[in-house]
């Protein structure tokens, strides 16, 4: 706050009041806060750094073998440097396109790259996270399938995503049917039975699913389309460089969490939720969208478009209340995908996949684990064990390792990324075999 005493005096005079308090003369005096806030006194930069240093010491950065929707992927050094350009991070939403072409163009590039990954024609400028994006996909299907209000969700979707979708459905009033998993994958018979009832607006499935399994959705899209409903697939975007895409499965909407695109785990955020769809659903898609156009001089440029659907215009008639996007994280993903390219992303998946298969084999060899489902997986897999999971993780934590995520009674999920080394995996296996 830059004002000097004399600045303040001059300004008060211009306004025609005597003192600062007079600027609050319209406020009922009994609600003017006169006590002391329960806060520390002001800290200098030196003290602030020390405070964060002290807090930081109470954290432990671990060798991560857990996933559960968040993966310890490699973050290229270039990205934080470019994100630190304050022309990017101190800008507002690009409502004035003439002076926001930087933001608008990277969002356009982001949309293009995510559309490449999902195989779909349109992508929005991003949502909060994968879970809320999935909930928005649910709303979108209900809004598109006129007069149907039921959505079927496979329980094999990540547990945290499931919880968020349930909450949104509960409050909004969507009739959500969660179909229990069967042998680690979507129970297709049960889903077919639900679709057969004729009132299903859409089906949501995940790939890879909560157990790390790559599910086979052959025929699912045709089945739900024949019943005039839609299919949404929640997919880890990193894996789409190698796995069959939502478009190839015939899905109408693809959603997921962008964290796997090299974003720091950062205790849960910020990441981003991505959402893609085909042209036919474009106008039901929530959130911002950037389009290419020309200015009056014929110059190529970019602009927020299809804004008429948005909450600030449509108010309670909007299909979503989202106003912002995770813009800077979309820039993160864009730079990541530019650096890695197709080949880099394939390598990331190959390394992760090979490491995961190596660990899988080694863990089985310890005799302490058994295959749980025997289904194809990429970087995360689930095993059966008689070990006490809590004790196992306490033991690994002592050795600076984040162990597996509990995946239900007697089940644990391990994840391996390209950041894990063979030595780290061998150490983990040795530690476990010594139990």
């Amino acid at each position, binding site marked *: 706050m830059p004002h000097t005493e004399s600045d303040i005096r001059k300004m008060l005079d211009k306004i025609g009041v005597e003192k600062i308090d007079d600027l609050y003369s319209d406020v009922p005096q009994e609600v003017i806060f006169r006590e002391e806030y329960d806060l520390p006194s002001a800290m200098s930069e030196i003290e602030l750094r020390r405070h964060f240093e002290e807090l930081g010491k109470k954290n432990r950065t671990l060798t991560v073998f857990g996933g559960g929707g968040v993966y310890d992927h490699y973050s290229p050094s270039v990205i934080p440097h470019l994100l630190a350009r304050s022309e990017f991070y101190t800008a507002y939403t690009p409502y004035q396109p003439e002076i926001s072409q930087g933001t608008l163009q990277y969002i356009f590039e982001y949309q293009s790259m995510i559309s490449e990954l999902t195989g779909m024609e349109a992508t929005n400028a991003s949502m909060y996270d994968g879970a809320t994006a999935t909930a928005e996909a649910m709303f979108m299907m209900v809004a598109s399938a*006129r007069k149907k209000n039921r959505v079927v969700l496979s329980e094999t979707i990540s547990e945290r995503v499931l919880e968020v979708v349930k909450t949104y459905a509960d409050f909004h009033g969507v009739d959500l049917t969660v179909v229990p998993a069967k042998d680690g994958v979507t129970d297709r018979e049960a889903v077919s039975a639900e679709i057969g009832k004729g009132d299903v607006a859409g089906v949501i499935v995940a790939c890879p699913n909560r157990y790390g399994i790559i599910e086979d959705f052959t025929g699912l899209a045709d089945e739900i389309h024949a019943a005039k409903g839609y299919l949404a697939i929640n997919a880890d975007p990193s894996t789409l460089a190698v796995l069959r895409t939502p478009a190839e499965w015939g899905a109408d909407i693809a959603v997921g969490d962008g964290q796997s695109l090299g974003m720091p785990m950062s205790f849960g955020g910020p990441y981003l939720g991505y959402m893609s769809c085909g042209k036919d659903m474009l106008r039901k898609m929530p959130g911002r969208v950037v389009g290419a156009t020309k200015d009056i001089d014929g110059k190529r440029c970019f602009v927020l478009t*299809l804004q*008429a659907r948005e909450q600030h215009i449509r108010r309670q008639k909007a299909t979503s209340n989202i106003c912002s996007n995770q813009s800077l994280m979309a820039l993160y993903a864009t730079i990541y995908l530019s650096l890695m390219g197709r080949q880099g992303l394939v390598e990331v998946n190959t390394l992760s996949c090979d490491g995961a298969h190596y660990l899988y084999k080694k863990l089985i060899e310890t005799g302490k684990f058994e295959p749980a489902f025997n289904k194809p997986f990429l970087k995360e897999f689930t095993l059966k064990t008689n070990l006490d999971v809590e004790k196992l993780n306490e033991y690994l934590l002592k050795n600076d390792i984040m162990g597996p995520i509990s995946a239900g009674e007697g089940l644990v999920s391990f994840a391996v990324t390209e950041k894990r080394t063979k030595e780290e995996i061998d150490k983990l296996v040795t530690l476990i075999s010594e139990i």
Partner: protein
Amino acid sequence: MSKILEDLRYADSHEWVKVEGDIATVGITDYAQHALGSIVYVDMPEEGDEVTAGEDFGAVESVKAASDLISPVSGEVVEINTALEDEPELLNQDAFANWIMKVKLSDASEVDGLLTADAYAKICEE
């Protein structure tokens, strides 16, 4: 001043209706297209859909606004104006010549409750 045709009936939500036999042709008024500005998209029902008087049957979008289309009549949609799919701007060119849907009326008496050209003109003036 917006154009209003004498021989049509109107809804206060700015749709017009023309009845021939048991078929009602529905569109938006010149006033509505003018208020919306450059129309970029028309969200239309499908043939065979049931529409209900007073409930929405689609939406029109311009660059800066989006507005629900409220059906003035009830019945089954028998035809939609597919020309609007590719050329939504036709509504700006002539909102009365470019209808949106044709409905087979389930209750023809509903039309009697709609506004006359004079009554609608008064609403537009307000």
